[in-house]
């Protein structure tokens, strides 16, 4: 096939990009080479629109062993142990084929983690769907949940936490972000940097088929009405093979045979071979006839661009081939020596005795395009003039019941009951809490993780929204008693070629950077997903933040369920009555304008650290951060989980009850303490200038507000638990 501008365009390469390729090669590429360029230069692999902005994120910290740039980030958790983690999107494929799209998203992120030598110990996910009334939503939700469960359950890795939201901006572009944490010894971490000449390049895992060709390119374009035709670009997952691959790789990794290892994810053999060679400043030679193929007569182009799953590329030490082969034979996996490292600094491909591609590796990596896209700064919206006298007509309990059964607040048990969350025998906090928590096997330590996003706040004001998501992740870790260490981010946005969407990206990243720097909560890995857009309509900006924290003694972990009658309930952090962009404003007042609540990073840090100290002293019986739906929604969840009631005695203040209970001011927590500890707790909080307020006392099975408003916890529970179950029937 002759290559020209038109063929290049069909590969998603712009005119000037094609021109640049010809200049770099000093000739016209052949079709295989063009395919390789298109795979390496698409947005998904090259980060060409995001790179200059991502550079601004703080990525270092005293516990950071490896920041962005490897398969996943790595943090130090003491005693020679480290946690490897990353989040990744699989949005486009999941919309086209929800089961396989979601399943291979989970498979891909687990591979990223065990490629580094870590055994996966926990999965999380952040999934976002269109309006519940939209005709596709139910099937997409069911397919995605089955896909995530199908893969993770079979792998035997617990899914310990997640987040699900519904918003009409995802009607045509759902989001499926999967996160994995793995455990590794600090001195047994594997990297993707090749080293040494004439080292054998080994292919292991599944055979290569024609599935997923151009998957990464598909993920770098917007959708239109012909999207169904892209189904063949979705990969098909086989978790059983991945489980074998995991065990085989870890077995090989226990010795010293591996120089470098890289999984074949997006852009398959192309990106894995090029990345390893590029990092080692080497060349690589591959004989494509040696690649195990599932189908006959596959062309070099197809072999290089296939995104068949469950495959790994390894650079071995010389002479270790037999030993390695034995291990992969034991696990019934393909094993083939397909090439070697060279000093040419080129990627050279051979097929049937002919050279079919020869490209200088630096042209694919360092010389890949980088754009400073036009972007529009957004203004902070003006505060709404909400008519507060309309509040007087509202009954608190009516509002509360509506919010508890709102699709973005209600219990997601229908979802997480389909995920095995207890396998591996170390899950000490299940889904449904502020963070999932797993013990570090055989030790007193535990790792907490959560994943958060707040698309509405980001949409209203991206800079504030970006800060808010990081702060919320921090709070979710603090609430279970974990010291926050680092984050991974999955940045889901519309088209970078649209300056509003690009502006949302730039400012969200700025907000994330500012908060993570202030909170000493660096970004160690992540992924950018642009083009979450159907024709001209993009999604609400949805950066998802996966946070990881350490609990030194798992027995000190805190949960959110109220524990004991007569204990006192306090709030930490100041309630100022911010209603704009709250769930209350959107659902009850149908008001979509106004600024999101402000983030005061000093208070975030101070409130969070003070709470951590109180937890460390053993004074906190339960804790929960205040988020969507405000104080009363948070308290209700604590009642429901603990099957306890509360008598709320609000102090007289100028604030209207509605503002007090439903506002979404940030940096707040609800805590439960023993009566006898009240003095100690409040003295400590006062000393540290942490605003706090006494809210009430725990009683049996009923919520009573100011003596006259009463509701049973069972009734609240039915509102909280029934919506999703009933919706999915």
């Amino acid at each position: 096939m002759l290559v020209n501008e038109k063929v290049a365009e069909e590969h998603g390469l712009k005119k000037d990009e094609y021109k640049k390729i010809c200049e770099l090669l000093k000739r016209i590429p052949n079709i295989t080479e063009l395919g390789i360029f298109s795979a390496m230069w698409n947005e998904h692999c090259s980060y060409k629109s995001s790179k200059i902005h991502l550079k601004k994120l703080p990525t270092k910290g005293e516990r950071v062993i490896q920041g962005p740039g490897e398969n996943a980030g790595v943090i130090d958790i003491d005693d020679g142990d480290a946690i490897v983690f990353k989040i990744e999107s699989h949005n486009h494929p999941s919309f086209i084929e929800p089961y396989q799209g979601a399943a291979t998203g989970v498979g891909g992120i687990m591979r990223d983690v065990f490629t580094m030598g870590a055994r996966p110990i926990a999965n999380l996910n952040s999934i976002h769907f269109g309006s519940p009334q939209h005709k596709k939503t139910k099937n997409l939700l069911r397919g995605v949940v089955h896909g995530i469960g199908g893969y993770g359950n079979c792998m035997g890795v617990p899914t310990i936490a997640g987040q699900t939201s519904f918003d009409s901006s995802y009607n045509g572009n759902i989001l499926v972000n999967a996160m994995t944490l793995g455990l590794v010894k600090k001195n047994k971490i594997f990297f993707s940097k090749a080293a040494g000449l004439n080292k054998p390049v080994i292919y292991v895992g599944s055979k290569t088929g024609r599935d997923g060709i151009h998957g990464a390119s598909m993920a770098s374009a917007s959708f239109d009405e012909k999207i169904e035709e892209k189904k063949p670009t979705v990969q098909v997952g086989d978790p059983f093979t991945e489980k074998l691959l995991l065990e085989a790789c870890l077995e090989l990794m226990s010795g010293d045979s591996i120089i470098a290892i890289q999984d074949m994810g997006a852009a398959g053999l192309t990106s894995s071979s090029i990345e390893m060679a590029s990092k080692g400043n080497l060349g690589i030679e591959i004989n494509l006839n040696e690649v195990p193929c599932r189908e006959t007569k596959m062309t070099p182009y197809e072999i290089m661009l296939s995104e068949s799953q469950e495959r790994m590329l390894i650079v071995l030490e010389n002479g270790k081939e037999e030993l390695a082969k034995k291990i992969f034979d034991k696990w019934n996996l393909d094993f083939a020596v397909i090439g070697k490292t060279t000093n040419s600094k080129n990627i050279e491909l051979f097929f049937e005795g002919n050279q079919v591609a020869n490209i200088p590796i630096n042209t694919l990596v360092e010389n890949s395009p980088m754009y400073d896209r036009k972007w529009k700064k957004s203004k902070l919206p003006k505060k709404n003039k909400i008519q507060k006298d309309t509040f007087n007509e509202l009954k608190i309990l009516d509002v509360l019941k509506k919010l508890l059964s709102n699709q973005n607040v209600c219990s997601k048990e229908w979802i997480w009951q389909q995920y095995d969350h207890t396998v591996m025998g170390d899950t000490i906090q299940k889904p449904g809490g502020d963070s999932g928590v797993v013990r570090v096997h055989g030790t007193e330590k535990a790792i907490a993780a959560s994943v958060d996003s707040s698309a509405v706040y980001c949409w209203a004001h991206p800079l504030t929204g970006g800060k808010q998501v990081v702060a919320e992740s921090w709070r979710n870790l603090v609430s279970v008693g974990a010291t926050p260490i680092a984050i991974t981010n999955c940045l889901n946005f519309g088209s970078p070629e649209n300056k509003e969407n690009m502006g949302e990206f730039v400012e969200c990243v700025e907000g994330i950077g500012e908060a993570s720097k202030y909170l000493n909560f660096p970004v160690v890995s992540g992924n950018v997903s642009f083009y979450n857009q159907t024709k001209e309509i993009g999604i609400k900006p949805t950066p998802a933040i996966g946070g990881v924290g350490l609990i030194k003694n798992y027995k000190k972990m805190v949960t959110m369920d109220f524990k004991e009658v007569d204990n006192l309930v306090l709030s930490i952090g100041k309630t100022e009555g911010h209603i704009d962009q709250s769930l209350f404003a959107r659902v009850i007042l149908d008001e979509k304008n106004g600024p999101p609540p402000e983030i005061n990073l000093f208070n975030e840090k101070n409130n969070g650290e003070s709470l951590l100290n109180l937890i460390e002293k053993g004074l906190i019986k339960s804790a929960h951060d205040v988020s969507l739906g405000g104080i009363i929604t948070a308290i209700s969840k604590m009642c429901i989980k603990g099957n306890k009631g509360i008598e709320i005695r609000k102090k007289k203040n100028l604030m209207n009850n509605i503002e007090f209970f439903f506002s979404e001011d940030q940096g707040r927590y609800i805590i439960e303490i023993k009566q006898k500890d009240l003095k100690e707790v409040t003295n400590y909080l006062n000393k540290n200038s942490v605003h706090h307020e006494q809210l009430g006392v725990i009683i049996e099975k009923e919520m009573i507000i100011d003596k006259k408003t009463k509701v049973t916890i069972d009734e609240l529970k039915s509102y909280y638990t029934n919506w999703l179950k009933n919706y999915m029937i």
Partner: protein
Amino acid sequence: MKSSVITFPGSNCDRDIHVALTKFGFINRLVWHNDNELPKSDLVVLPGGFSYGDYLRCGSMASKSKIMKSLINFAKSGGMVMGICNGFQILVETGLVPGVLLRNKYLEFICKNVFIKIQNKENLYFKNLNKDIFEFHIAHNEGNYFCTRDQLNEIEDNNQIAAYYCNINGKTDEKYNPNGSLKNIAGVFNKEKNVLGMMPHPERMIDQSLSGDDGALFFKNLINNIK
């Protein structure tokens, strides 16, 4: 006391049961499915997971693994064999215990705590337990127990039903049936009661920090019974 846990390709609760058995005093060995002979054991456990990816039919391919010949001989000569979850599925495929395990009634994977009522204590698994109702954990997609009417009559007559799903008070209504199992059956024995298959995972309940610790009672009692 010596125990063995067989690892099939795709087993994923082999480590969990190994941890549990070891914690309560067994000297346990993990045995590879491709071995010919079982090591000398007082108890053999077929663990949970997705042996051979659960392709074809859950447990079906594992039931033809090389080690199974030795295992079947061991069971037929009276050796104690316990299959948990996927292990139960493998046991029904070998025919060592009666019945089949169908896909869950609501066609969804279920992971949660359930209560089970121990039906028969005249065997080494449950003898001397000082209560009847246990809180265990289930995590499966195909745990819907089914057998023919004749088989049911036979296992009822022979006291082969090991446990029923129930509520905290031991009520065995359909309401407390998580997966559609015939008569709420959660586990069955062979005729001689030396082979036990059950869907619930006691190994996930061995510590108060986990989902609960009723599994600890089960294992402590089990090793005492075998001693």
